């Protein structure tokens, strides 16, 4: 007698805020939220790239657990009850965003990404209208050596989207991170000027996925840098299939 094929991935039901939902058990919380348009702030996660878990803005509460979980790196499970909004979470997200603004030099009014920046947009969403944390005011370098693009470390939030897209989608691995702690910096090749890179194909994927005004096109002026990330899920799927 023919046996019904046993599915390798099961479907689970869970509750996110007041929504009863179903999901495949290999999905993460953030994937399910995105699918159902439940907003969760995030800066490092991007559909199509590997999980990073660095920005910590996507933290959610799970019923019955005192610790928080990162939605981008936690898989769903049967019967899970998830809270994406609470006073505590809002307060934490607010503080994390403040930490980012205080860390480097974000002067939106003169930034090419003004109005099209994920950090700025999230700050507005999360009600960060002032920063209580002292600004560090450390000047960072700008690398304009590439003929088409520019890297302004003053706007970098070290989300490593550029590192991952370059490695995982373009296959060039031009970018990496050097040093530790607040001294961390994204580097091209072995900390050489980007324009001298042997590996960069000038595809511009890193520029498009960069959430802020850190990676931009040369020649853009204030507010002109609009990014397009639609290519990513499509390319990622193609990479995955091949």
């Amino acid at each position, binding site marked *: 007698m023919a046996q019904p094929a046993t599915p390798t991935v099961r479907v689970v039901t869970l509750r996110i805020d007041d929504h009863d939902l179903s999901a495949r058990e290999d999905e993460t919380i953030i994937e399910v939220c995105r699918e159902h348009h439940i907003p969760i702030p995030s800066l490092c996660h991007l559909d199509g790239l590997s999980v990073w878990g660095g920005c910590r803005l996507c933290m959610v509460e799970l019923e019955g657990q005192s610790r928080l979980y990162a939605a981008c790196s936690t898989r769903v499970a049967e019967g899970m009850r998830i809270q994406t909004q609470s006073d505590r979470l809002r307060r934490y997200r607010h503080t994390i965003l403040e930490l980012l603004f205080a860390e480097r030099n974000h002067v939106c009014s003169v930034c090419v990404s003004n109005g099209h920046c994920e950090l700025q947009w999230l700050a507005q969403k999360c009600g960060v209208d002032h920063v209580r944390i002292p600004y560090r005011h450390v000047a960072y370098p700008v690398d304009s050596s590439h003929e088409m693009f520019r890297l302004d470390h003053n706007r970098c939030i070290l989300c490593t989207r550029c590192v991952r897209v370059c490695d995982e989608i373009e296959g060039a691995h031009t970018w990496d991170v050097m040093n*530790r702690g607040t001294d*961390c910096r994204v580097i091209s090749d072995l900390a050489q000027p980007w324009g001298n890179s042997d590996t960069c194909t000038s595809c511009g994927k890193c520029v498009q996925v960069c959430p802020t005004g850190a990676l931009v096109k040369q020649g853009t002026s204030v507010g002109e840098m609009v990014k397009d990330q639609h290519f990513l899920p499509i390319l990622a799927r193609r990479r995955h299939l091949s």
Partner: protein
Amino acid sequence: MHPEDLAEKAAQFRAEDAAIKREVRVCMAASCQSSGAAPVLEALTQLCGDGGGTCRVKGVGCMGLCSAGPLVAVADKDCDLADSVLYRDVMPTDAPDIMRSVCGAPVERLRCPTDQPFFARQQRIVLENCGIIDPDSFKSYVAVGGYAALVKALSEMTPAEVLREVTTSGLRGRGGGGYPTGLKWSTVAKTPGAQKYVICNADEGDPGAFMDRAVLESDPHRVLEGMAIAGYAIGANKAYVYVRAEYPLAVERLQTALRKARGAGFLGNRVADTQFSFEVEIRLGAGAFVCGEETALMASIEGLRGQPRPRPPYPAESGLWGCPTLINNVESFANIAPIIRNGGDWFAGIGTEKSKGTKVFALAGKIQNTGLIEVPMGTSLRDIIEVIGGGIPDGKTFKAVQTGGPSGGCIPEQHLDIGVDYDSLKTLGTIMGSGGMIVMDDTSCMVDVARYFMEFCMTESCGKCIPCRAGTQQMHGLLDKIANGQGTAADLALLEELCEVVQATSLCGLGQTAPNPVLSTLRYFRDEYEAKLADG
């Protein structure tokens, strides 16, 4: 190999030096070496010659009282430390007197009493061979019963029985978290996978901690034996010891031990003539504290940037190169051989209800006897500090003891009578950690202490996640401001808020615990912070 064959071998090794009656043991562990033990050993060896066939001079591992080094013990063979005549601060010029004392009266001017509580109050399981056997000698390890546990496990026990003994013992991870070792082993054993790995975490990065270093330098075979038993129990045939490169002596002794164990057939193919094979390799860490965190450590072994990744998946499920991996601390592995030899019930009889066995602590700071001790879980802090540690020097008074390093906290005088175990320390707002204990007297400023540890976390943060990378930096800035008398009540409030956020949202243990030193000093010494506020 049958256990009896090994016992025979051990008897044969003992017979080889049956004529030796007296021993002069020179501590050749790192601390004593740095205070000049090598020339002492040389002078004594030269004077002793062949010792008339009845006396010998040998280098041994750490005796514990490192602050009094170089230490030399004169003892009957097979006699332990407490029954020996111990000499402190020995110089090469003292060698003739010491050699004369081997068969005569002790040299009183060098003498360090061994009936003092520092020696008498300890219970040595992990350190049982430290300071007694020659760490570079395979024979001397076997002569004191070494590898008997491995042979017993391989020839008389199934992997499931080994797991049961370890679970029964109640041993909890000595790397800081206190996760039940038996449970961790069973999880890896049950996870399907053709290739599994064992990793020994010898990265030991806490400032002031040197327990693991001492074990590796003094009794390296014991760690290898524990790892091999683990490999048998979980079905792994490949292991790594991840040691920090700043421990050259430990690495050297480990290499010697590996070579000799392999040569004798206790590692490599067909361990002790059984079907079980077990290869161990050494990997050197480059001195990043965060590489002690298990996922960062594994990334580092794989040749990647030593940076933590989110868990789950835990190493037990997906560790080294995606394979099920067991990772334990040096001291955890060092407890395995005695557990298998004497049974899990024996081990479970020592310690407190939820923390079994003993714990090695490194006493440091403002305390008379700095060095290494091993006491049963549940020993009171007062006993450790005032009795074993000999109290506070220079007529000062005790103020606080810091446990758990940069992830831990300070305990004030009023809680000194608590028995030390994983849970009691947690209720006091600190953690057991790996075993560092830094004692502070009334001259220490608690804001400074918090600032010191925060600086450590700030410079050791890997930078991956925002709360830890930027948060430790900001907290350090605020602590600095308060310590300098320029802080305000608003700064203190912001500091406390950052503590909460960094603790709750950081990716790995480094960030999650970085606020602990601040939170615990605020809990017990808030007045010191407030007294320093500019608007206070």
